[in-house]
């Protein structure tokens, strides 16, 4: 009568990042998870499922039946209301980020951050507060539309030592990423990103969890939800990767460790 798997995992598609996350989820939950991929159609979720782990904003924003708990990951521009869900963040914890940035770039005192998705407004406030003890100030700019990016970069040029590109899906795209990269190379301003996969596009270094680690963290959160344990509604993955593009690092004057 009751399904053996109390956890269902819903993925936006079957592409590489989601497959990595699924591996991480299985690392944690073994065979207790039932995966569904939205590109295959409507997921027939059994009634016995008590926890949904959603990967991607499309999966996170779906309505799920009954009193299922929701854990969602890989939805960087999306917030599901706190009473409904636990979010696994794509960016690293603020203190972890700043510690690693300072190790990579000891001279860092002014960090520039551009953002567009409304969700990052509160992130900026938290980052600013966390940066103060490290002696770092945050120079941020809200972007209304992508055409403003060159102007904003020109405005903050000279006022920042490095640029932190948050995983804002409205900024990380084929049109705008090269603008960030060119600004970084031309002005010798290191461009730090949260996802290692962006390094081959010309970013300097990445500090952030892998997709597999996000899957593992989602698995841990799902296990807690199964046990009705209290947990934060926003979780930063425990492990982050620091990956350096040595060629770009040399170009922008960063000494790779």
């Amino acid at each position: 009568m009751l399904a053996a798997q109390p956890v269902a995992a819903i993925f936006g598609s079957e592409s590489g990042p989601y497959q990595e996350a699924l591996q991480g989820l299985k690392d944690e939950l073994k065979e207790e998870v039932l995966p569904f991929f939205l590109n295959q159609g409507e997921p027939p979720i059994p009634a016995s499922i008590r926890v949904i782990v959603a990967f991607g904003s499309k999966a996170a924003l779906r309505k799920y039946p009954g009193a299922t708990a929701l854990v969602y990951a890989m939805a960087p521009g999306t917030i599901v209301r706190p009473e409904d869900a636990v979010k696994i963040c794509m960016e690293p914890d603020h203190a972890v980020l700043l510690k690693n940035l300072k190790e990579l770039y000891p001279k860092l005192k002014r960090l520039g951050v551009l953002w567009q998705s409304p969700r990052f407004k509160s992130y900026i406030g938290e980052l600013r507060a966390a940066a103060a003890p490290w002696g770092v100030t945050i120079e941020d700019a809200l972007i209304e539309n992508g055409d403003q990016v060159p102007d904003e970069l020109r405005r903050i040029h000279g006022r920042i030592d490095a640029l932190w590109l948050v995983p804002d899906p409205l900024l990380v795209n084929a049109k705008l990423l090269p603008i960030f990269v060119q600004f970084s190379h031309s002005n010798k301003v290191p461009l730090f990103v949260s996802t290692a996969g962006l390094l081959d596009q010309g970013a300097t270094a990445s500090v952030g969890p892998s997709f597999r680690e996000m899957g593992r963290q989602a698995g841990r959160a799902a296990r807690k939800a199964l046990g009705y344990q209290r947990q934060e509604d926003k979780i930063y993955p425990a492990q982050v990767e620091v990956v350096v593009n040595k060629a770009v690092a040399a170009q922008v004057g960063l000494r790779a460790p």
Partner: protein
Amino acid sequence: MLFRIISLAVLALSASVSRAAEPSGELMEFFEEEAKVVTASRRLEFVREAPVAVEIITADDIRRSGAVNLWDFMRFRVGMNVIDARSGDGNRAAVSVRGFPAEFVDKLLVLVDGRSVYNGLSGGTVWEDLPLQVQDIERIEIIRGPNAALYGSNAGLGVINILTKKPQEPLSLFTDALWGNRGMHREQASLEQGNRRGAYRLSFAHKALEGHPLTAGPRGNDFLYSNKANFRGYWDLSEKSTLELFSGGSWETLGLLDSAVPWSQGRFRNDFEMLKYAYAAHKNSSIQAMASRRDDLRVFDPNFVGVLAAREYQYDAEILHQLGWRDGRAHTTYGGSFRHVSVDSAGIFPGKPRQENSIGRGFLSQSFSVSPRLNLTGAASIERSDTGGTEPAYQLAAVATPLPEHTFRASYGSAPTIPTLYNKSASQRASATVLLVGNPNMTAQRLRSYEVSYQGSFLDNRLLIENNLFYMTVGKLARTIVQSYVFPLLTLSFDNSNRAVVRGAEFKASYKWDAGRSVYANYTHETVSDGKADINVSRGTPAHKVNLGAVMALGLGFSAAANAGYQDGHRLYSQATGQALDVGAYWRMDARLAYALASCGAEIYIAGQNLLRPTHVEFPEGLAVPRTYLAGISLKFGK
């Protein structure tokens, strides 16, 4: 070297930045898909388009409340008046929004899955009689303020929109049983089954209770035996079209308060069917059509005059077209509806037992995003009814979001409340000393409301705050008047000679720590003045209401919820008895403690209502609302 750096810097500052080769790969596809979702939802986040004040009660809120009766879920909400009242037509609750709590609340429209359940005979909603089960409810939307242009007449104070869950489980069985003091028990069960093309749900509920004691102490004649059955199913006829069928019935036997006949009983039967069809013509255009039928028979046995029966039929049909244009910045909805209500009752309408009312309505609603920060909405309707004549309704709202998560709204609404068949044509001996007579010259009441509001979220969406200020006038306010008094017979009738002004303020705040822990508080202040110095009007609404509550996940599967509410003393009038009573101020607290079994879909709980005092009075019909305790268990099985 220096020159080269400067020239590179100049290139970087140049407006035309040469583009590198297009990045490709699954990572960029991932971000691209995410951007689509954020862009689509960003408009909703950035501009809160709701042109009205809305409160949502979710299925989780209902489960945690510990309440048993449908109307109890709406207690403790800002702007709400919920009273355990027993009226002459067998109603067991009076629910109103923004004032005017009364036996028959004729300015509040209640919909179930879009179908009006407004009682065409005497006005208002007969709550216990609704063929609707608590276990089937997905959410309740309480929309405060005039909404007649969008929903139809009799929505001047607001609309309560009850939505049931759409069946979607492959196969599941849900059961719930609870037992309480005062002879209360309730059993519920539902079966749901579906596949990729469609699904259905069958549900059944039985409830029995002794009811409230008399204020004087002994058991009152307030018992209830209730059975409800419902069906809801849908079929995807194609990728673009869906057909839905709703059907249900409610059968009750209940004790009635009648000083002349203390053992009087009511036997009520209410059944309905509704068919809905939706067609998505293309991405931005959809057509919806609905047809429904309702048959409501109520027998009062015995009544003062013997056995009184009233049978009401209602037929509804509606069609509307929704259209998005200008790249989703504009939305248009237009359509029409027709309703026919007929009531057969020789006891209420001697001489002409069948009374009828036909209502035709056309409506148009338009919203437009002037900018990402400003949205304008307007709606208008024209309605023609046999009892109310031709009446227009309007709504205008401007919603501005100058900063993300902070929204300001200014709105105006004008709505009619059409007379009921009872108001116009009744001639009923309500008791040994009271005769109620209709007034064929009754006309529609006209409600106008001006409102400003602010909504904001702080601390990463954990703290939500809402403020509303409103000024409302009710022209041609219907009232009960004394037509004549020849001992011992008091003859009451109705007219439209009064006018009322309501000034109100609503404040709401909630804070959520995490999933499972939250607190809220709300406060409502209303003052009512009228043109006839009628204290039943000016003192009929509590001036101050405060509600507090909390939900706490306690760990190890335990959770608790508590709600407490206070309202000022006020004055309530009973049409059936012709008497008014000053109801004193009171606090009320309801609470629930639950344990969810981790190994299966089960939950056991204990709950209590009206915990702060043994009894208190909410309505002048002679009953005291007692303290109640209950315990229950719910189980869900599925595949």
